């Protein structure tokens, strides 16, 4: 493709602004996925590869609700509720049995769940992607006579993600429930001795994470369409964002997501789409070489 050097005339400035705004809106979406992954990690020390498939499934359900006449917000609420239930069910039935064992087994189980959920979605709804409505208008704001690459729906997405990150932070830092969840994840034996219902906390952790994931799914769906495999790239980028931010803090997920979104947007705009996945790798390596636990990691690297 033809590479045009970034110019700093008005077109160049417009392009830079557009790419920045695009980076923020796509980054908010990666942050939403990352938040769900961080939540499950903090609650159960498992990386949930099935996250993308779980919120694909709940988004399909929401889509079915909306297609049969329900309002958007009804579909939204149904998606969140189904996410909560699905997360709890998955934890109780499947994950509970691999929680104490080798971490790799949980990874394999999650992969199996990913494949199974995508296949079931394909069986029920077919492989053709379908359209999903946005919450608000996607017509870009008009600034100085031109429309920019940021619309009311993007504002909604960013606000929801910030709100969720803050709410999760408050949950973990300030509430007794959050403390119990953290204790159940880090020191289940000690927590049990102190009266924490560890099993229930783990289930709650997964249910909450799936709810946040469903939120991410509904926010993303308008721009990637709803289909069994449509959310797969988002899982990869969401996971990358979570790692960049550090799996320990929700604010890490938010910052990691936006940072990743911005970098990928600039690379795509100035270098071409074919370098995007490579750029994600480079960013990840650079961040982890400086801070091996992610940007917001609390533990320092152990020197021997």
């Amino acid at each position, binding site marked *: 493709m033809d590479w045009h050097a970034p110019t700093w005339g008005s077109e160049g400035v417009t392009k830079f602004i557009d*790419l920045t705004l695009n980076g923020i809106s796509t980054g908010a979406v990666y942050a939403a996925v990352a938040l769900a992954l961080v939540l499950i990690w903090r609650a159960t020390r498992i990386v949930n590869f099935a996250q993308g498939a779980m919120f694909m499934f709940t988004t399909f359900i929401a889509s079915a609700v909306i297609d049969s006449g329900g309002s958007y917000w009804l579909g939204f609420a149904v998606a969140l509720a189904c996410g909560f239930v699905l997360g709890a069910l998955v934890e109780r039935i499947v994950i509970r049995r691999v929680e104490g064992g080798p971490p790799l087994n949980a990874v394999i189980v999650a992969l199996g769940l990913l494949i199974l959920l995508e296949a079931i979605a394909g069986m029920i709804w077919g492989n*053709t*992607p379908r359209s999903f409505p946005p919450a608000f208008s996607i017509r870009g704001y008009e600034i100085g006579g031109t429309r920019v690459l940021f619309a009311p729906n993007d504002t909604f997405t960013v606000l929801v993600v910030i709100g969720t990150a803050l709410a999760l932070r408050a949950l973990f830092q300030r509430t007794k429930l959050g403390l119990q969840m953290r204790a159940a994840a880090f020191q289940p034996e000690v927590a049990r001795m102190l009266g924490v219902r560890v099993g229930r906390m783990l289930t709650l952790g997964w249910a909450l994470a799936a709810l946040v994931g469903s939120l991410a799914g509904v926010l993303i769906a308008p721009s990637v369409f709803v289909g069994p495999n449509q959310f797969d790239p988002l899982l990869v980028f969401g996971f990358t964002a979570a790692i960049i931010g550090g799996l320990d803090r929700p604010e890490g997920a938010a910052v990691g997501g936006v940072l990743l979104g911005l970098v990928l947007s600039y690379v795509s705009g100035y270098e071409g789409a074919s370098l995007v996945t490579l750029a994600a790798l480079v960013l990840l390596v650079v961040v982890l070489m400086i801070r091996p636990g992610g940007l917001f990691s609390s533990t320092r690297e152990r020197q021997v």
Partner: protein
Amino acid sequence: MSGKRTVRVVGCVCVATIALIAGGCGSKGNSTGVSSTSVTFGTHQPLTGPAAPGYSEIAPASVAFFEYLNAQGGIYGRKIHLIIKDDVYNPTQTVNVVHGLVLNEKIFGIFEGLGTPTHTKVVSFLNTEKVPDLFVASGCPCWDNGTAQPYTFGWQPNYTIEGKILGQYIKQHFASSKVGVFYQNDDFGKGGLTGIRDELPASQIVSAQPYEPGITNVAPQISSIKASGAKVLVDFTVPIYTALGQLASFTLGYKPQLVSSSVGIDPTTVGGLLKTFSKGKAGTELIEGAITDGYLPSVGEVSNPWIALFKKVHDTYDSSAPFDGNVEYGMAAAYTLAQALQLAGKNLTREGVVKALNEKGAQLTGPGLVPYRYSTSDHGGYAGAQMGQVKGGVITQFGPRLITTPEASSPITTYTTPQAAPPTTGVSVP
């Protein structure tokens, strides 16, 4: 290693071997997939995975048309069967699946193998084994060389041919407008871009932005095209990316004249993806007025006798699928395969089918609006297309039917022979 463990390992190898043999048993039929009552073909398709949308409808539609023919007795009394195998658009799977079809299921030939990165990996095997490789579902020029690959035949028009025809239309109607091209970063998009560049002066094409399938954020590319001032946007995209491009254009308030290849503009498919963004139920508002090319009659042209035939077959044998361009593709290709079998004569052999196509293929008429390029040396498919425009959510075709070859600067000529009507039963051959 202890003796006990050696025995155990050898035993494991034996078990594995037995399993392998057992997995391979059960090949049925006679040696070349043809008998007096049936002929069996195989195909590799992306039935699941990211490439499945739309494409997974094609082979079942072909099967539906074969069932229609089989109900009438088939061709020379032989029923046509099609074994469909999923390769998930992964070339490793394609090779394994096609080897299985040829060596295990012992099919007569491969029909409608889908995809360029997938099918290019089995062409050499099929030609070495002398297995007919008919009507590859891809517009790559890879299938054109009849001398080097005598058993492989293309079917749909070459992407470069489409690009040239679209480029000529732009030259005739938008000569003073800047042109931007949004294309898939593979031979489909690049082939189309080559055709466009062949017709338009370099100064007119102000921006050419490729996208990667799998990276759904195409707003940076559309933003670049908008920034270049292009008033005409040429799309060499698959339907999902046509829709994504339109969404980004909508956000940016960018309203160029859309000119799209036939691959990515099927209104049913694209409309379905954009449904919730438009006020109308069809969802085609954003692509209304788009210019495209087509080598088969538009699915929306209900008065066309071929469309009526295909709709009848669809409603009887494939009613769970939407009646869209993919289904029409599958049925039209199936018709061509049946014609090839009819041409080959009552005594059906692999060499016979290839010879028949080489000698008489170019004279075949059918649902296509233009002729085939088939000859002994040229195995390319349809030679051109007719222009069309999306009006009221369906494609209305207009203008002369145009044919050309993929070579640079080869002329684009008009084809005037009117389209033949479909036969009432079976297929018709010269």
